[in-house]
């Protein structure tokens, strides 16, 4: 039997691919075929395939955004044959919630992340600022401005700016959450005309203008990572996985100078509710369900963590899925950011992303099928605001208009 596995080209998955042998040794009757793709292309491919029942894949790597939507459509097999060693109870509750529908697990988390603040301790010291463990946006702004020194190409803060629902809109939705804003009210009316959004976006644009790097409007995760690693950023607020990259001395000039803090709050008690996990799911149509479950359980159980640790060291194990990992002293030693990561993950609540009531679940995204298109369209407006080609007000107005349009078309607004 040959399993075709679609996966994203991130480091942890690549590592899993290299450990294939361990699995095939244990299951000599199962061969693995890997299809590794860049995130956006992967999403297109698997979505087209599953929606048309193309049946090309037996295991798919999907995000927390897709799991609930697909599960509702009955496209995913509920994972009830993962074996005794799987220990479902060990999963972080927030993650486990995100990949379950009606209490049933529809995908098994491979690694998870939230967002947090990473900053340069040396620069902060030089600028004479301290960043508390639970900062507010004002504190961040103040610190960023003080750290900025454009003559040495040191920028106080690096934030995502490239348009895209998974790029700038992830950060901006989380930021908006932390400012008390929401995408929709209970009747699915878009809320970009509300003061909370204006406050959040104005804050973001102003801060980036003053303390951000050039070209911020086309920076995504990778661009910011490169900037931070080469020592050009004072503060970077992004996904928690970044921590393992910036502390890797082989790649990073600033490996030993990074400090961490929780995602900032902006007046309300909300740390943005950023939660993401890449999960392994099994399409309902597969004829190799049993083998697929075997593989999923191999790749996501505790033994796999130990396997990686033994081959590549504890710093490289996939983070963010299991409580037991964070209790492991060896991991804590290898990953100085473990504590903050865990805190951030537990703080994220996807069923109640904002302080005001909303009809959707999510966090840095809204878990409705239209969100990819919508988020990207709104993201384009906001990145235009950041680039300075439109004002914040214009951007919000356009966002409101186009969101209303799409929601009407989608039948949400009657």
């Amino acid at each position, binding site marked *: 039997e040959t399993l075709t596995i679609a996966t994203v080209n991130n480091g942890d998955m690549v590592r899993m691919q290299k450990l294939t042998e361990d699995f095939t040794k244990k299951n000599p009757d199962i061969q693995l075929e890997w299809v590794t793709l860049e995130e956006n292309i992967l999403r*297109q491919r698997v979505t*087209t395939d599953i*929606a048309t029942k193309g049946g090309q894949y037996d295991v798919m790597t999907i995000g927390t955004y897709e799991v609930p*939507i697909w599960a509702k459509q009955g496209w995913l097999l509920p994972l009830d044959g993962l074996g005794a060693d799987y220990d479902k109870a060990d999963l972080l509750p927030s993650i486990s919630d995100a990949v379950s529908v009606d209490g049933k697990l529809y995908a098994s988390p491979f690694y998870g992340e939230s967002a947090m603040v990473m900053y340069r301790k040396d620069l902060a010291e030089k600028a004479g600022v301290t960043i508390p463990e639970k900062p507010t946006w004002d504190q961040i702004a103040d610190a960023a401005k003080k750290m900025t020194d454009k003559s040495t190409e040191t920028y106080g803060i690096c934030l995502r700016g*490239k348009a*895209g629902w998974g790029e700038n809109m992830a950060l901006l939705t989380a930021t908006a959450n932390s400012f008390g804003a929401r995408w929709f009210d209970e009747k699915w009316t878009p809320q970009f005309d509300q003061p909370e959004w204006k406050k959040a976006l104005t804050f973001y644009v102003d801060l980036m203008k003053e303390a951000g790097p*050039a070209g911020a*409007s*086309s920076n995504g995760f990778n661009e910011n990572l490169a900037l931070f690693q080469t020592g050009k950023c004072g503060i970077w607020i992004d996904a928690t996985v970044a921590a393992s990259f910036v502390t890797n001395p082989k790649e990073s000039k600033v490996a030993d100078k990074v400090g961490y803090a929780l995602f900032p709050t902006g007046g309300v008690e909300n740390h943005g509710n950023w939660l993401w996990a890449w999960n392994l799911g099994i399409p309902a149509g597969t004829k190799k369900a049993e083998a697929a479950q075997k593989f999923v359980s191999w790749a996501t159980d505790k033994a796999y963590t130990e396997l990686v640790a033994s081959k590549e060291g504890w710093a490289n194990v996939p983070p963010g899925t299991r409580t037991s990992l964070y209790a492991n002293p060896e991991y804590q030693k290898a990953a100085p950011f473990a504590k903050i990561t865990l805190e951030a993950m537990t703080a994220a609540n996807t069923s109640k992303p904002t302080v005001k009531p909303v009809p959707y679940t999510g966090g840095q995204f809204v878990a409705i099928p239209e969100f990819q298109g919508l988020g990207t369209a709104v993201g384009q407006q906001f990145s235009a605001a950041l680039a300075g080609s439109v004002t914040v007000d214009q951007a919000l107005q356009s966002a409101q208009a186009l969101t209303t*349009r799409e929601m009407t078309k989608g039948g949400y607004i009657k």
Partner: protein
Amino acid sequence: MATLQTRATARIMMSPAVILLFLWMIVPLVMTLYFSFLRYNLLMPGTEEYVGFLNYQYFLTDPAFFTALGNTLLLVGGTLLITVIGGILLAIVLDQPFWGQGIVRLLVIAPFFVMPTVSALVWKNMLMHPVNGLFAWIARSFGIQPVDWFAQVPLFSIILIVAWQWLPFATLILLTALQSLDGEQIEAAEMDGAGPISRFIYLVLPHLARAITVVILIQTIFLLSVFAEILVTTNGGPGLQTTNIAYLIYSQALLQFDVGGASAGGIVAVILANIVAFFLIRLIGKNLER
């Protein structure tokens, strides 16, 4: 050539290609047309229903539509401008005798072999990046504020990348055309007292007209559907500044998975492309027949 027999065989010989192409065109086209009248989102199966012209209405009234149309024309026009003018200049340089001509020619045609995605990635990240990019470094070495390409001049940046990929094509065609210019004509003009510039204006340019037409025709066909470069670099942003029709349809089809909307968009694009083609054919008809 023209006996009844040969004409009959000709029809038979042509039919496989024509029939297959016709099927290739018509089957997806009919399906697309059919889908375009449905509410059909891949992510919400089972909700398909006939909605009349709703999808068209939404596509055409999309505030992004006219911007995208404009951007499409700018992208095609700008790229054509750069490649044709650059191609002519380059062809003239390459036509002069100099040392290592053959090698330079190889260097110049190389971009044509690079996959669009690869070239977009390389340009965006390694060259145009305002902080880490090579251009920024060069600018700073001269003490100039580096250009923030994708924020300040996003569409132009895309045009630049696309033009880089197509410049070799234009150069090669124009170079070949240039080399086919009758030497005696140039000599005649020389005897007639025409200097290099007059010769260029009165002889070389008109001689290249046909080749330029070919460049325009072929490139337009390919440029109308550029989207990989946009996807990789700007995702159509900031704002709508780099969204073209192809990208707009892409976002409907592969971000929203709105098959109905994308189909309507596809039909609109086909119509637009045919309008462009109509003008092109009239242009070509005149110039190719000669």
